[in-house]
């Protein structure tokens, strides 16, 4: 292999700064999108598990639609197509006035996409809580909302911590797709370092190490949370 390694390039100005900005952007986009995904996904999951008829059709359609179109295309749809379909004034506002339109769009697109995946997990978690729990909640006089709030969701969330961990990890990886609409997150910055310096492998190695570190930290954090909140005698792990 004929390649002149030069790890020093990573610590030179401005490349070190680019890496730092990339990491910050990846973390910001992912965490902001996760807030949307977790709240909206929980809401959709609850309605999907409890409702029937029109509501279930609506939640089912949301899940189906957002899971079956590539995230890259979803980003393009939100970024290029939606401003064209809105009333003129709103479209122009989105394109011209909104600060950092590409970052906001990426967060929204990634959040709505991941919400469909979170919804599936939450619905599965609620289904896994034994039926007696829901009956007992109603029998002791709790309203439907109270039953979900105090009995079903606290148990369902514990059950789905492992698959939820994997969705949380995936959102950091998926945030790299934001580079296609011009967000300078970690992968985009390393690609930029490659085209400026031709020292691509050093930059890609740095990005790989950062993504692995994020994965390790998230996994450790979630294991700690799982252990903290586990109900004695009733764990998800077989």
């Amino acid at each position, binding site marked *: *292999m*004929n*390649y002149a390694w030069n790890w020093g390039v990573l610590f030179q100005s401005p490349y070190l700064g680019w890496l730092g900005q990339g990491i910050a952007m990846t973390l910001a986009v992912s965490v902001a999108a996760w807030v949307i995904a977790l709240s909206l996904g929980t809401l959709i999951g609850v309605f999907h598990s409890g409702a029937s008829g029109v509501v279930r059709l609506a939640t089912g359609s949301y899940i*189906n*639609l957002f*899971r*079956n*179109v*590539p*995230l*890259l*295309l*979803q980003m*393009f*749809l939100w970024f*290029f*197509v939606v401003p*064209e*379909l809105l009333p003129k004034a709103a479209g122009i506002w989105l394109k011209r006035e909104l600060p950092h339109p590409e970052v906001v769009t990426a967060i929204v697109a990634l959040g709505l996409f991941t919400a469909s995946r979170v919804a599936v997990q939450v619905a599965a978690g609620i289904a896994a809580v034994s039926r007696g729990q829901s009956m007992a909640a109603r029998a002791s006089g709790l309203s439907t909302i109270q039953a979900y709030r105090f009995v079903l969701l606290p148990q369902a969330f514990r059950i789905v911590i492992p698959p939820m961990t994997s969705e949380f*990890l995936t959102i950091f*990886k*998926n*945030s*790299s*797709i934001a*580079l*296609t609409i011009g967000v300078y997150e970690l*992968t985009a910055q*390393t*690609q930029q370092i*490659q085209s400026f310096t031709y020292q*691509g*492998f050093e930059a*890609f190695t740095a*990005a*790989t190490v950062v*993504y*692995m570190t*994020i*994965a*390790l930290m998230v996994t450790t954090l979630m294991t700690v949370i799982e252990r903290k909140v586990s109900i004695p005698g009733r764990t998800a792990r077989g």
Partner: protein
Amino acid sequence: MSGFDISVILDALPLLAKGLGLSLGLTAIAMIGGLALGLVIAIVRLSRFRVLALLAALYVNGFRAVPLILVIFWFYFLVPLLLGRPVGALYSVLIAFVMFEGAYYSEIIRAGLKSVRPGQWQAAQASGMTYLQAVRLVVLPQALRKMAPLMVTQGVVLFQDTSLVYVVSLHDFMTSASIVANTQNRIVELYVFAALVYLALCTAGGTLAQRLSSDRQRAH
């Protein structure tokens, strides 16, 4: 913008069909290659060879920790360098996809192999089979039925992921739609059409996975 112009899509159909062909071809090769590689990795991880099993685990967890786009970039620059000559984006991408999918498929296969009851392993060993014979003749046939729905689901994810070759300008379905959208200045039509095609194909795949999984439940 003025109305939804369907003629742009009709004119572009040959180009889009060619793109879809590449997307489907890439999916098929990555799936077959990924399954083969995944099977080897899963068998190594469950074997008695500690060091090899550890290396296989590192491989799987390494690939699963990084975004596919980064893997595509890695191989796009690495493959020509290793071979000492330019090979074109397609080959680099194919290798990247097979290596990446191998990690994901190995997890599905490993879970499938582990789901077969220990008595089956013991019986196979007791009847004098080697580890590989036990896998091939006893455990894998049973595990395959459990894995089939997950494999199809992963295939649907993979098909969607092939759109990421956009970053190295390979003309798959997504990239072709994007090219027509920009040259004809018909962004809305092309992206909405592309979304509908992906939606239809992936929904069909999802339905197949569901049917496989309910068939399995009935068989038990």
